């Protein structure tokens, strides 16, 4: 029983991380048909923004010294600012090009950000300690659950709730959903293209910052490549969920998180190192059965 509970919490917290990442990708894809592969580098950038630039192994914490009620908003703003800046400087110029061109532009942007970080911080991973008290376990029905897992799950659920309220209840949320479904039609109804796209980038950047904070707290290190793995899996999650579908992205994130944890727990010991192969194998099976994803948006097919 406690083992099952432990697995459930592992799955939920890992799934939360992937869901947040997938959301950041799905929102931008929705309004712009851009798969932003620089998203992983946004995540790493937000983590490194807490450190002074230096090439030493022991990081000199800078913004990370702030109390959490200042640090969290500051990092969210840094994430949003970086994301908005990349839209204005880079992606705006590719807006009417085909999706492959935009995707390659996002790879290029990712390289630039990564190498900027290499210059400032060197490639050596740095240890960073945020909120050590979150590592302590809490007892829940007999299982020892790290506080951080609970916090991760709560943060994700709160972020999802805010996002759903924003999308469903506000004028800008409505405009964003309309634009995601039919961008030209939304513009012909007076929806400002730049406004909607900048908003999507800002939210996506904030989600990247949230992931950065969670990753840094879990791992205790700042590594330039730390966002890449999350980004890859989050992208796969959006594909499984159906590209362009926001609920699909969230569901995809949780499904992949759950699959990883369940394979980790149930595979025979010798096969565990190949866990990711099993996860990706399952992804292939899903896509063979439903190539459009599990929750393909309704806009994909149009009634006449």
């Amino acid at each position, binding site marked *: 029983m406690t083992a099952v509970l432990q697995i459930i919490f592992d799955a939920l917290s890992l799934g939360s991380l992937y869901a947040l990442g997938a959301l950041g990708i799905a929102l931008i894809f929705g309004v712009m048909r851009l798969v932003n592969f620089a998203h992983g580098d946004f995540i790493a950038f937000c983590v490194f923004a807490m450190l002074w630039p230096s090439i030493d192994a022991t990081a000199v914490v800078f913004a990370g010294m702030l109390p959490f009620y200042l640090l969290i908003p500051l990092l969210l703003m840094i994430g949003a600012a970086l994301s908005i800046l990349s839209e204005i400087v880079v992606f705006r110029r590719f807006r009417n090009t085909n999706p492959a061109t935009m995707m390659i532009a996002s790879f290029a942007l990712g390289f630039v950000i990564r190498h900027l970080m290499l210059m400032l911080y060197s490639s050596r991973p740095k240890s960073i300690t945020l909120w050590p008290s979150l590592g302590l376990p809490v007892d829940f029905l007999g299982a020892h659950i790290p506080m951080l897992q609970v916090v991760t799950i709560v943060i994700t659920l709160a972020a999802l709730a805010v996002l759903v309220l924003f999308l469903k209840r506000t*004028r*800008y949320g*409505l*405009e964003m*959903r*309309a634009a995601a*479904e*039919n961008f*030209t*039609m*939304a*513009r*012909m*109804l*007076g*929806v*400002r*293209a730049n406004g909607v796209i900048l908003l999507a980038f800002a939210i996506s950047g904030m989600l990247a910052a949230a992931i950065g904070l969670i990753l840094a707290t879990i791992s205790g290190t700042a590594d330039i490549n730390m966002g890449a793995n999350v980004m890859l899996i989050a992208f796969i999650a959006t594909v499984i969920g159906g590209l362009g579908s926001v609920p699909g992205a969230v569901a995809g994130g949780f499904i992949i998180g759950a699959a990883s944890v369940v394979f980790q727990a149930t595979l025979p010991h010798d096969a565990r190192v190949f866990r990711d192969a099993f996860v990706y194998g399952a992804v292939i099976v899903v896509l063979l059965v439903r190539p459009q994803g599990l929750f393909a*948006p*309704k*806009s994909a097919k*149009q*009634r*006449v």
Partner: protein
Amino acid sequence: MTLLAVDDITVSYGRLTALRGVTLKIAEGEVLFVTGPNGAGKSTLLNAIAGVVPAGSGSITMDGAKVTGASPEDIARRGFSLVPEGRNVFGALSIEENLKVGTGMRADRHKIAGDLESVYAEFPMLADRRHTAAGMLSGGQQQMLVIGRALMTAPRIMAIDEPSLGLAPKIIDQVYEILVRLRAQRKLTLLIVEQSSTRAMMTGGRMILIRGGRIVLEGAAADMIKDERLKQAYFGFGDH
């Protein structure tokens, strides 16, 4: 007073020229019926006015202000509301959400709730299903929805591209009855594009025949419908 003036515009898609020097004017409260065979450039004309496709040369003015090259959202904000061909409802959004998308730009926010009720009064079928996803509606209901959606922007000119496309004749009659009634009630300026010219009988007003990207005939709809040259334009005889 001239509300919309299109002056000598040319539109090309790559090497294909869709519109060659089209000039037209629409006065406030007028109905203009644009007709012509398939591929004549009718939809291109509407899309060029809406700012969706760029005009290669010529100018478009609304209320005397030049809007050539303006973005679709800016043109919509000036009061040009296009109901494009194929309707383009937001299928995943509810009926009410569809109606509200275009209200974000309105300055007279206090009037929106009242306008919503009047659209529902006009289309009771939409009111009954206001929380249903728009993608579930039939073609005729979707056509009503997009007309309602355009009305919700409080447009000065409403342009409709092929409102009869894919609809049963009985439903087409209903759509036109609504358009005629709306025009009488709201003094709406209407620009209707339709491949078949027969419904122009219902709307009255002026009519323009486009063929090969040019205006080939222009006059009062009632006279034009009887004109032999109108039929010839479709079958391709005669020189133009």
